[in-house]
C-alpha cells in the first residue's frame, strides 16, 4: 500500500501531474463559470424582454435554438465539435478550448435558471418599477435581479458543482486536468486504484468547498433581506 502510494505520488515527482491537473481543472471551471454566467444573463434577458414586450423576435429565436441545441446534445460532442471542427485549423491553447466549450454549455443551463428566477418575482414589482418611470434595464438591475438571485442561488450552486465535475470530459481531447492526470500516472504504474481514488478525493473536496461557499452566500443574502 505504502509502496503503491509512493509510486503514485512521490516517485519521479508524479504528484506534479496531480497539481498540474488540479490547476487546469480549476482554471477551466472558474473561467467557464464566469463565461456561463455572462452568456446566461444575456440569453435570459433577451428571452424575458421578448416575453414582456414582444420585441427582439429574431434574437429570441436564436436564443431558444442555442438553449435547445446545447441541452439536447452531449457535452463531449460539443467539446469535440469546438476542438476538431471549429478550431481545426487554428492553433489555439487547449485550455481555452475547454473554457469556451464548458462556458457555452453552462450558459444554456444558467440562462434557464435565471429565467426561472426572474419569472418567480411577482409582476407587480415590474409594474411598480414602470410606474416610477424606470426603464426595463434599471428595473432588472435594481429591483428584479437582486430578488431573483436569492431564489436561484441553490440551483446556480448545483450548476457550478456539475460544471466543475464535467470538466473531466476535457480529458477526452487531451486536456491535462485532474482525470487525465490520474490516467497518465496509472498508465505508468499499471495501478488504477490509487490514482483514481486520489482524484476522486480531490473532486470531492473541491465540491464540498464550493457548496459551502454557496451556502455562505445564501445565508448572507438571507440576512440582508427576505
Amino acid at each position, binding site marked *: 500500500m505504502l509502496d503503491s502510494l509512493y509510486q503514485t505520488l512521490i516517485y519521479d515527482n508524479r504528484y506534479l501531474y496531480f497539481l498540474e491537473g488540479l490547476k487546469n481543472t480549476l482554471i477551466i471551471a472558474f473561467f467557464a463559470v464566469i463565461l456561463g454566467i455572462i452568456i446566461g444573463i444575456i440569453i435570459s434577458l433577451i428571452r424575458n424582454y421578448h416575453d414582456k414586450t414582444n420585441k427582439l423576435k429574431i434574437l429570441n429565436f436564436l436564443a431558444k435554438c442555442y438553449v435547445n441545441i446545447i441541452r439536447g446534445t452531449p457535452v463531449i460532442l460539443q467539446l469535440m465539435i469546438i476542438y476538431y471542427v471549429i478550431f481545426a485549423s487554428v492553433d489555439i491553447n487547449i485550455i481555452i478550448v475547454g473554457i469556451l466549450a464548458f462556458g457555452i454549455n453552462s450558459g444554456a443551463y444558467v440562462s434557464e435558471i435565471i429565467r426561472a428566477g426572474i419569472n418567480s418575482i*411577482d409582476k*407587480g*414589482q415590474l*409594474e*411598480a418599477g*414602470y*410606474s*416610477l*418611470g*424606470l*426603464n426595463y434595464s*434599471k428595473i432588472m438591475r*435594481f*429591483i428584479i435581479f*437582486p*430578488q431573483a438571485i*436569492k431564489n436561484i442561488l441553490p440551483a446556480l450552486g448545483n450548476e457550478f458543482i456539475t460544471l466543475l465535475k464535467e470538466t473531466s470530459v476535457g480529458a477526452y481531447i487531451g486536456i491535462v486536468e485532474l482525470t487525465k492526470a490520474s490516467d497518465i500516472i496509472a498508465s505508468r504504474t499499471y495501478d488504477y486504484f490509487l490514482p483514481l481514488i486520489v482524484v476522486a478525493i480531490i473532486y470531492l473536496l473541491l465540491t464540498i468547498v464550493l457548496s459551502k461557499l454557496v451556502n455562505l452566500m445564501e445565508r448572507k443574502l438571507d440576512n*440582508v*433581506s*427576505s
Partner: protein
Amino acid sequence: MLVVKNLSKRFGKTTVLKNINLVVNKKDRVAIIGSSGCGKSTLLRCINQIETPSDGKVLFEGIPLNDKETDINKIRIKMGMVFQQFNLFPHLKVIDNIILAPVKLGILKKDEAIKKAKELLNKIGLSEKINNYPKELSGGQMQRVAIIRALMLDPELMMFDEPTSALDPKMKLEVLDLMKDLGKTGLTMIVVTHEMQFVKDFANRVIFMENGEIIEEGSPKDIFNNPKSKELKEFLENICI
C-alpha cells in the same frame, strides 16, 4: 391635463374596456366606482401604459402616450401610481424604496433624496421605520410608504388602484386620511375604490363604470342622491349606503 379618447382594451376575445372617453382637469379629484371586474383598474393601467390599449388614444398634456415616438418612461415620472398590493420592493429598506427612483433617474442626488424622504416620512409619522424592511410594516404603513415613494417624483397626477382593498378597517382610515390630505394640496388624483363614504368626502367628480363602459358621471351628489341609470341604481342598492 389628461384626455382619454375612444379607448378600448381587449384581452384575446374578451373586451374589458369599450370606447372610454374621459377628461381630467388639473386639481380634479376623480373617483371611479363600479363592481369588481368592470374594468376600473384596467382603465388606470391603460392610462399609464402598463397595459397597452387596443384602440383609442391617451393624451397627457397633449402628448399621445400610446405612440411609439413618445418616451413613456419620462411621462410616467409625472404620473404616480399606487397599487392594491402596495408593490414595495421587499429587498430594500423603507428609505431605499423611497429614494430608488429619483436617484437612479438622476432627478435628485442621494443626500437630497434622503432629506426629502425624511421630510415626507416625518409628515406621515413613519420616521422611525426608515431603516425597516417592508415586511416589518403593517399593511397601512406599507401603503403609505408606497404613496410617499410615488410622491418623491413630484407627480402632476396620482392614480390609486384600490389602495385600501387589502387593508383592514383601521388601516384603511390612515391611508384614506393621507389621500384626503393630498387632495387638499391641489394634487390631481384618480382613485379607483369601493369606499363610498370616502368618495363622498373626497371626490369632486365620480365616474361609474359597468362592463367596461362609463355609464354615468357627475358630482358625488348627482351620483349618490340622484342616480339616473338603472345600472347605477342597482349598484347603489347592492352596496346599501
